[in-house]
């Protein structure tokens, strides 16, 4: 899932400025699971904005809603009426949602309520860990399912580096060296000999370094104008 953190209230209020009609729009998918921007978190933010306004002697109207997801335009259609009303919308969706909502409603002022952080998994209740860097050229088959791109501080593909001590990373002694984990995992699977193979230099052109990425499924995708009678 996409993991995010809520922005500090001061930062959100600065973006909101002197708007009097504020819509806080939550997303019911990833950011709900990571307790950053779901219905409940949007209710908390909306309440904080109201309380802050009361303390400042201002009158603001804050509405809340929660869309099934913000990353598909058909769900964003629900926002049309609310955006007619609102001076500003605080989105507690991830950055994808803020981008798409801003494309669908280009004249609306839509601001991010979250800092989108990483692709991660739930490690324990209330804790999420980064698992994937979305590099576009997966090597997990070679590393026992442990991503060296995000779990190694140096993103080393032929590790470990010299900073690995007693199985811990030199960047943080509390962090297990990802390559130690890879070595242990491959040993568990009886595949230690595979560690001798050298991973060639990675083509980072498949990652974000190559510019905006897109994915097209030919049998589904219809270019504009195509399929019209």
């Amino acid at each position, binding site marked *: 899932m996409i993991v995010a953190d809520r922005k*500090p*209230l*001061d930062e959100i209020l600065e973006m909101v400025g002197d708007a009097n009609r504020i819509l806080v729009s939550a997303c019911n998918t990833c950011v709900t699971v990571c307790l950053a921007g779901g219905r*409940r978190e949007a*209710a*908390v933010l909306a*309440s*904080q*904005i*109201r*309380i*802050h306004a*009361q*303390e*400042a002697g201002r009158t603001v109207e804050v509405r809340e809603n929660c869309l099934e997801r913000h990353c598909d335009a058909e769900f964003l259609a629900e926002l049309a009426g609310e955006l007619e009303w609102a001076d500003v919308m605080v989105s507690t969706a991830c950055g994808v949602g803020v981008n798409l909502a801003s494309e669908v409603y280009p004249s609306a002022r839509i601001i991010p309520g979250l800092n989108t952080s990483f692709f991660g998994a739930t490690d324990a209740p209330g804790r999420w860990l980064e698992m994937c860097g979305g590099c576009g050229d997966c090597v997990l088959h070679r590393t026992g399912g442990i991503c060296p791109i995000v779990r190694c501080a140096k993103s080393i593909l032929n590790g470990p580096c010299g900073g690995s001590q007693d199985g811990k990373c030199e960047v943080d002694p509390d962090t297990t060296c990802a390559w130690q984990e890879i070595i242990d995992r491959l040993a568990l699977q009886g595949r230690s000999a595979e560690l001798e193979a050298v991973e060639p230099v990675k083509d980072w052109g498949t990652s974000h370094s190559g510019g905006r990425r897109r994915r097209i499924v030919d049998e589904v995708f219809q270019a504009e104008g195509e399929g019209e009678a």
Partner: protein
Amino acid sequence: MLSKDTVAFLCANGGQLLDAAYPEVLGDAVRVPIPCASRLDVVHVLRAVEQGARRVLVVACPAGNCRSMVGPDEAERRLHRAAALLREAGSHAQCILARAAANAPEDLRSTLAASLEDAANQIEEAPA
């Protein structure tokens, strides 16, 4: 004596029973029954303040006395979180967790007395 600007969330297995037997302890506070202190949500506290509460009290069971085992601990964590969110929003509303059994009104009285004294001291210390 508590006034109507206090909202008291009362656990069904402790606080509500205490209040039924000793209603004078909570005075005119607005009572909100909850099945267990662990059901308290951060949003409940914020909404109470939004609607005018200057003090939010949660009456939970003492440690080891909770029918749901961890109710008071859950309530304490959420109340701390709510207090932090209130401070972030610029509110000075007071959040108080009282751990008192249904037959121990003195525990509730002493927690309230200490909290009210703290609040009074904070007001005195606040810059003009």
